[in-house]
């Protein structure tokens, strides 16, 4: 076992909102050809048949308004360009057409193709190049937030492809309950009471001991009392704090300012790095829940079916969904001083591909802290990849970057 893995005591997951891999990290290909980003030749056709190229023109705010549709039926159009035939191929050619439906404005619809130049996102792109970036981390479902986040907590959405309440009679335990039963500690840190938790209200209702605020996360980092597993939720809304101060949403959900999310990611990283004992024993995964309707060029691969069927009434496509295909690719970065600098985890377009999805989170955490042979999991989780092998160094790095918040 590498020394780094031997030292690992804490896993922290920070899940952001609604941005695709290409939108945030696609520009990195120009700096490192191993990163499966954009070549500059990618485009979709608009509703007039003109080309809408993928260009580095993304803005921090006020560009993707209205919020791009990312419900199941819309994502189906984005991936398959509206083709419903049995022999259809995933072309990633329907993003502009899908966004056009919301404002019926051809010029505006092309903005769905825009991505950030790397220098505009100094935190995310630095972490991607300094640590491990995944070329093949996909959202679990070609659909919206809540069913995707369910995979991060339970390894399944229990047959849901939508935003409805999913947790009555859940047949698999959440990763927090599994750790608790094994005598380990787990916590979900939501930003504050006004932002609260997004999807696992059932745990808030029956097991509030699993919850804490972001302030508490920072205090736990200082005190060295971080639990074995932590899941961090960003601030989901612009609101005033208890002292009347302006608290900007940091989730990066359109139309929230992307820069505040950058600062939030940096503050989580800084909190861990500031305590040397914690820094050497913690792995931080930064991942996005789904693509938010924004362009990515890599077709989602097929996957192990989850043993459930979403009926046509739920999918909105007129067809059932067998949970046998992943959702659109999202940014994912694993941070640890024991991860080799510049690690690029191969994705579907590389040799020896490794495909990750949100079920990889409970899989990795359960394997590492509870039992690799833990049986009571969804078929998707059982088949999911784990990521602790990326913590592969025997000598801890001392050249890791430092973020200075202005």
């Amino acid at each position, binding site marked *: 076992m590498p020394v780094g893995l031997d030292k690992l005591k804490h896993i922290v997951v920070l899940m952001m909102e609604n941005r695709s891999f290409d939108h945030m990290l696609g520009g990195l290909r120009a700096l490192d050809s191993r990163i499966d980003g954009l070549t500059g030749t990618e485009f979709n056709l608009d509703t007039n048949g003109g080309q809408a190229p993928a260009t580095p023109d993304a803005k*921090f705010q006020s560009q993707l308004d209205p919020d791009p549709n990312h419900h199941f039926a819309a994502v189906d159009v984005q991936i398959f360009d509206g083709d419903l035939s049995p022999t259809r191929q995933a072309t990633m050619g329907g993003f502009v057409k899908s966004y056009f439906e919301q404002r019926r404005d051809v010029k505006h619809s092309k903005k769905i193709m825009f991505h950030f130049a790397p220098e505009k996102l100094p935190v995310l792109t630095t972490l991607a190049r300094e640590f491990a970036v995944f070329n093949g981390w996909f959202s679990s479902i070609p659909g919206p937030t*809540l069913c995707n986040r369910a995979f991060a907590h339970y390894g399944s959405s229990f047959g849901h492809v939508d935003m409805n309440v999913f947790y009555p009679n859940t047949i698999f335990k959440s990763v927090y309950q599994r750790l608790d039963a094994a005598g380990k500690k787990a916590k979900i840190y939501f930003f504050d009471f006004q932002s609260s938790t997004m999807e696992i209200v059932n745990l808030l209702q029956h097991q509030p001991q699993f919850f804490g605020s972001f302030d508490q996360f920072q205090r736990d980092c200082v005190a060295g009392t971080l639990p074995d597993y932590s899941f961090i939720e960003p601030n989901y*809304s612009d609101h005033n704090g208890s002292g009347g101060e302006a608290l900007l949403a940091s989730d990066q959900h359109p139309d929230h300012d992307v820069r*505040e999310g950058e600062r939030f990611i940096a503050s989580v990283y800084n909190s861990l790095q500031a305590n040397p004992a914690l820094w050497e024993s913690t792995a931080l995964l930064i991942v996005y829940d789904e693509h938010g309707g924004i362009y990515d060029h890599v077709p989602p691969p097929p996957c192990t079916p989850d043993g459930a069927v979403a009926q046509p009434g739920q999918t909105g496509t007129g067809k059932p969904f067998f949970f046998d295909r992943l959702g659109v690719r999202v940014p994912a970065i694993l941070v640890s001083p024991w991860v080799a600098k510049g690690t690029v985890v191969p994705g579907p377009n590389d040799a020896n591909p490794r495909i990750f999805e949100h079920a990889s989170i409970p899989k990795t955490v359960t394997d590492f802290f509870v039992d690799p042979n833990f049986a009571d999991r969804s078929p998707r989780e059982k088949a999911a990849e784990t990521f602790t092998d990326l913590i592969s160094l025997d000598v801890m790095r*001392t050249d890791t970057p430092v973020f*200075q918040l202005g």
Partner: protein
Amino acid sequence: MAIIKVPKTPASAFNPRRTPSDLIRQQIKHLEWALLPAAQRQPTRRKDGTLTWFKGGAVKTEAQAAAYIAVLTARVQDAYADYQARAARGLPRDAGPAPVVRLPKVPTVTLAPRPRAKAPKAARKRARPSGAKKTTRKAVKTARRRR
């Protein structure tokens, strides 16, 4: 060791008046769902298709959503504390008929007045053509007196 400077997000990005996203409305729905006993979670719908028990539609801004979410979160946690207290006294959680739960009112949030947008430079120039007298308060008062 590289030091990366992360600039402050401009204050102009703060918009508590923003209409809440579908995601935030769903979050409200989930919290309301958690507060209600099963008998009150009937999937009956209004004419517009929204669930009859769902109050999130009354929320107009992100600030209001945040205030309501804070109230709901506290209520969910209070309900758990009540349950713990009952359990400590040896009372079953669901003794007798489930009490009717009233969802809290959506709070009214008063926001500071929106700062007036400064007219673009070109527009300001046009408003005072070259050669025109300055429109200071003093100049206006003097002009009125003259009239």
